């Protein structure tokens, strides 16, 4: 499936708006929290919102800027989550400054995901379109499957590793199992906070927006628009594809670390790290507008909130959610609907007769 993009140029023009939007959201939320006017649900959702925003923005780098369809983003998130959580649990007694520990965990998670991005990227970026999509999907499933059979424990002799079961670790008295196969990691310190989430979002936005408006970013977008032409003017396709893919993967890793430190238990289930999650992230990107970073942020927030806001509907919740998703998508992307919207908004702004170049 070839990915077309609309109005990429929006990115640079609106980067200021995007930062503004994020910071404003942060300030408003902080005020609401400190005045106690935020419901527990909303307060609990602040960190997850940051996580999904990071995922959406980072996937937009692969899908929107690089123009490749990836269905394995959750796999990178999984790598980041387990790396970060493993580190934190292993060092929870060693490093007592939570912020320091968490900082290292984030860096390690990002690095691990980046390494996987490179390992997967080098051979795989030669593939195109749907074939690339299927390979990334396969990768995500492999990671999920793999994590479910890993057992790592520690005792005074150091780390023990097994792929059979926890018993096979042969831990001495007093040792502890850190990754326990399908039972995953429990007891990850609850280090993720809204503030850290927002800071990470801003860093990631900074990297992506600046990247897009630099030499490397232009090369990446050139490859997306026309690979053969890019090659003909000396752009190293592999290098830049890999760069975009790896950066995107490492950011998913960061989201994973944030995810792991938001809940006390971490298991790799189809629900959280399977292809369904990858697709969900893709939904954010597409609904927000491919290549439109601000749009992915809004879509991620809306679609994360939606099922929670629909809780009042009880049994009909997911049904309504599905319908809303379909309707939103049609409303947002169908040429007919877009036309209608344009007309409608034109009538509203009856002073302006034509809109000119922007369309």
């Amino acid at each position: 499936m070839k990915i077309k993009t609309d109005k990429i140029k929006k990115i640079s023009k609106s980067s200021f708006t995007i930062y503004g939007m994020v910071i404003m959201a942060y300030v408003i939320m902080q005020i609401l929290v400190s005045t106690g006017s935020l419901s527990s649900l909303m307060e609990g959702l602040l960190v997850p919102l940051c996580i999904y925003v990071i995922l959406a923005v980072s996937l937009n780098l692969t899908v929107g800027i690089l123009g490749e369809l990836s269905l394995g983003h959750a796999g990178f998130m999984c790598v980041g989550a387990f790396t970060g959580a493993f580190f934190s649990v292993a060092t929870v007694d060693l490093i007592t400054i939570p912020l320091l520990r968490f900082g290292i965990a984030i860096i390690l998670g990002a690095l691990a995901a980046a390494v996987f991005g490179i390992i997967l990227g080098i051979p795989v970026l030669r593939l195109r379109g749907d074939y690339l999509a299927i390979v990334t999907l396969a990768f995500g499933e492999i990671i999920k499957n793999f994590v479910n059979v890993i057992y790592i424990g520690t005792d005074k002799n150091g780390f023990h590793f097994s792929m059979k079961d926890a018993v096979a670790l042969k831990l001495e008295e007093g040792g502890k199992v850190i990754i326990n196969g399908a039972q995953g990691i429990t007891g990850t310190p609850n280090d993720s906070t809204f503030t850290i989430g927002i800071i990470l979002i801003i860093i990631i936005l900074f990297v992506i927006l600046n990247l897009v408006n630099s030499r490397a970013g232009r090369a990446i977008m050139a490859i997306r628009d026309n690979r053969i032409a890019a090659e003909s003017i000396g752009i190293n396709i592999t290098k830049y594809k890999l760069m975009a893919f790896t950066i995107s993967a490492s950011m998913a890793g960061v989201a994973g670390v944030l995810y792991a430190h938001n809940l006390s238990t971490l298991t790799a289930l189809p629900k959280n790290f399977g292809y369904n999650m990858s697709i969900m992230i893709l939904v954010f990107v597409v609904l927000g507008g491919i290549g439109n970073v601000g749009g992915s942020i809004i879509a991620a927030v809306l679609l994360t909130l939606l099922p929670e806001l629909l809780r009042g509907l009880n049994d009909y919740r997911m049904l309504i959610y599905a319908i809303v998703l379909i309707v939103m998508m049609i409303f947002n992307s169908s040429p007919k609907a877009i036309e209608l919207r344009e007309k409608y908004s034109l009538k509203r702004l009856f002073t302006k007769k034509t809109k000119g170049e922007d369309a």
Partner: protein
Amino acid sequence: GNTASETTDAAATTETTDAAADTATEATGATFKIGGIGPATGGAAVYGLAVKNGAQLAVDEINAAGGINGTQIEFNFQDDEHDAEKAVNAYNTLKDWNMQILMGTVTSTPCIAVAEETNKDQIFQLTPSGSAVPCVQYDNAFRVCFSDPNQGIASAQYIGENKIASKVAVIYDSSDVYSSGIYEKFAAEAANQGIEIVASEAFTADSKTDFTVQLQKAKDAGAELVFLPIYYTEASLILSQANTMGFAPKFFGCDGLDGILSVENFDTKLAEGVMLLTPFAADAQDDLTKNFVAAFQKAYGEVPNQFAADAYDAIYIIKAAIESGKVTADMSAQDICAALKTAMTTISVDGLTGAGMTWTADGEVNKAPKAVKIENGAYVAMQ
């Protein structure tokens, strides 16, 4: 709906009390607000919906009989899609609803995540079916079901002590916390019981339709018994595939297998001779079970499984604890929690899933696992 909503942890205690007190004076009488969490959609919905229905049945019964000490119960069940993060969201939703007591969550991973929150907020939590060890690691959390290690060890002991088989194969779900948790302890205890595990074969959530390979390996390894620490949906497939292959070992399972007879359209002949350790059998002939099954069928049109029974019991356990702990509906959730914690260790409840159930302070239940065998399409107690 309730308009008052508390916020930060510090402020929560007093505000909740106020809010509860307000409604108490204004309305004809306060209610106990019990929340429930579990998967109501998604692949695990079958367990969550069973719990939801079982609990609702108990709540309705109690309310119809005049409530707990005259106070009615409000029950609010939230979907978690079998996901830790959604479970925390569900929990927060319930908190916004001013939940006082949590009956949940249904599945283990979400349960562990929510236990962290209930402990932080000091809200009493009773899980009907969260069987993983860390589900009740804090002192405010208790459970109705057995723990995974408990079941794994008990199964191995039962097989060993009754000399049911010496060569055992295990088929388990390596991507599932419950299943791999039981398997792990079973394997460890099997060694002590002189049971030889001749094949331990896994499957995952992503490939759980075809079990012929696992069965073939068990067969080739000469297993006399296949241990199935899994849920009944997959087990019913395993039984029918084993039958097709002409492989007829003994099958032994845990509480997850319960419900297999009530699978709509299931050929019960396939399950003939299957043994399971379960606290509940829908065909049991005691009045409690008979009434429950009848009422459940009337209300929801299906035979209840063990999850429904656990949830039904959970509500009655909460009732017993409230009565014993002299808890009233106008108390704050935190006060209720403190009272119930102590009350739990003193009560003894006769439920569907066990007679004379008692609890230790670490949250675990004491009840005898019943070993049952399926004979002529019905559960028959074994000894």
